């Protein structure tokens, strides 16, 4: 464990986390993309340094997606969509750094819980996760959709209609069971369906740019002026302590959902948000800057990152897109995921677990710096900020598949 703190490991570790903050905070650049870009770089490093780089990027990018979600109502990654619901209203009240600091503390706490569960219960959880069949996944999907109705405070019916509209859009492309084309209209681009990231960017990013056209943009910008110094950290710590059981519950939910192959941090975040709202004593405050609305999804999404490693390490079945990429990298380091991983590569698996554990503490430091930097950036005139959002939204949509069609979407 001591060699993990040698500068040859620590330096790429921290650089990876800074890279993760930057990529995660840019709408259109996902955590998956961040890891995909960093994996080839990691091959030039020794195993511990390479693993630290990859793990550092994946955890940090998920947290960093909450930064634009809170300040701009534009999730940096899909896993941060749930964080917009209460993070942004808090930022509008001038409590942006508090919301993000609370977010950061919950991300660290959630990640720690996830890693501890990974360390203690990985084989048992993996066995349960692999028992999930099509029926269970169907109900999990239905649960996720029903949360869209749950979070529609003022109109349950409209929330359901929005979910139905989303499902209809999701049918565009080739049917995965029969291979028949639906709503393709002869277009090659539509055959693979409507990409999720461009749709999310349009829904959150461009809609925010268009919303900013309606008067009082300078006053809105002024409302975002916030308290500085250590006040957010102190307040965030007290808030985390106040909601410690919710944080723990959300982290456990996040880890369990993350352990399900194919169910990633985004589903974990929504699941935890829905559960928190259902069990809250003040559910009417959700969506208006409730601290619980920040604690739940942010604890869950980072915990899910750890949870995704469970089936990946134990059975070689990736828990999400990020671990799918990482599995390839692990084989390059001579680590063969599977039931015998602890016997065959015990030392390296221990390194992975300790790296994941200490990443949560480094995340605290890197995250605080990231919050400071972005807070200052976002104090620019709102028109300039929106121009930046516009540019990165367009480029981010294009960058996913090198397709201008996605920009049109």
């Amino acid at each position: 464990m001591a060699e993990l703190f040698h500068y040859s490991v620590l330096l790429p570790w921290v650089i990876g986390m800074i890279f993760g903050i930057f990529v995660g905070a840019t709408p259109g650049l996902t955590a998956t993309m961040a890891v995909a870009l960093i994996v080839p770089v990691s091959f030039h490093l020794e195993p511990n340094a390479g693993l630290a780089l990859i793990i550092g990027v994946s955890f940090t990018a998920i947290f960093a997606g909450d930064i634009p979600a809170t300040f701009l109502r534009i999730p940096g990654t899909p896993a941060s969509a749930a964080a917009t619901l209460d993070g942004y209203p808090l930022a509008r009240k001038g409590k942006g750094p508090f919301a993000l600091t609370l977010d950061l503390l919950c991300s660290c706490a959630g990640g720690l819980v996830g890693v501890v569960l990974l360390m203690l219960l990985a084989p048992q959880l993996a066995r349960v996760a692999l028992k999930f069949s099509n029926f269970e996944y169907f109900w999990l999907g239905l649960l996720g959709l029903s949360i869209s109705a749950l979070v529609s405070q003022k109109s349950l019916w409209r929330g359901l209609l929005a979910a139905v509209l989303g499902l209809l859009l999701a049918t565009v492309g080739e049917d995965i069971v029969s291979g028949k084309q639906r709503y393709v209209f002869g277009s090659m681009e539509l055959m693979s369906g409507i990409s999720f990231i461009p749709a999310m960017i349009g829904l959150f990013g461009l809609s925010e740019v268009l919303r900013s056209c309606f008067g009082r943009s300078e006053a809105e910008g002024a409302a975002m002026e916030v308290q500085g110094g250590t006040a957010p950290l102190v307040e965030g710590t007290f808030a985390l302590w106040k909601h410690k059981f919710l944080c723990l519950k959300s982290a456990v939910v996040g880890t369990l959902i993350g352990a399900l192959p194919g169910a990633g941090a985004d589903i974990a975040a929504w699941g935890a948000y829905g559960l928190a709202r259902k069990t809250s004593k003040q559910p009417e405050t959700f969506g208006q800057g409730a601290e619980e609305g920040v604690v739940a999804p942010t604890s869950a999404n980072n915990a899910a990152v750890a949870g995704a490693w469970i089936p990946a390490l134990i059975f070689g079945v990736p828990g999400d897109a990020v671990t799918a990429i990482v599995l390839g990298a692990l084989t390059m380091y001579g680590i063969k995921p599977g039931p015998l991983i602890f016997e065959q590569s015990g030392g390296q698996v221990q390194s992975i677990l300790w790296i994941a554990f200490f990443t949560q503490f480094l995340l605290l430091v890197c995250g605080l710096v990231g919050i400071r930097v972005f807070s200052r950036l976002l104090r620019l005139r709102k028109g300039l900020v929106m121009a930046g959002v516009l540019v990165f939204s367009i480029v981010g949509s294009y960058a996913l598949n090198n397709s201008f069609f996605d920009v049109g979407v």
Partner: protein
Amino acid sequence: MNSRDPGEMAPSWPLGLFLIVVGLAGFGFGQGIPADAVGNNADPGPRLFPLALSLILFLGGGGELIRSFRSGGVSASGPLWKEEGARTFFAVGGLLCGFFLLVPWLGFSLGMVLLVLLFLRLKRVSWKVALATAFALVVVVRFLFGWLFRIQLPEGWLESFL
């Protein structure tokens, strides 16, 4: 007398109309989806699901429309085009459409400079600041995506001459 819960959103006829149109389009275009049965006759193939969703949207839109007319026919927030900033909203929408259509000719960088410049002018930012911001953003994007991430940004007909 309006017995609606004050917290509930007012019914909106544009939303109702939109859902009806989408539902009709989904249902109409969905007729072309093959309905081969998979397995025995109990499996309806890939057509039933989108048709059912379209029907739900059509009915939901109809319900929204009826509720809107019963409550007076005006949405609580008033028509969009009367709101302050509506002209800017439609102008930005037009800019985005223009950008999408003109990029094959102008190229990504040039198109982006024009888009940002005009967008900032609509937001009443001075020419100097708008131009500087536009160029700065394009340089950053070129560096990050073009050089660092090795993503080939589209070059238009005009850009290829420059």
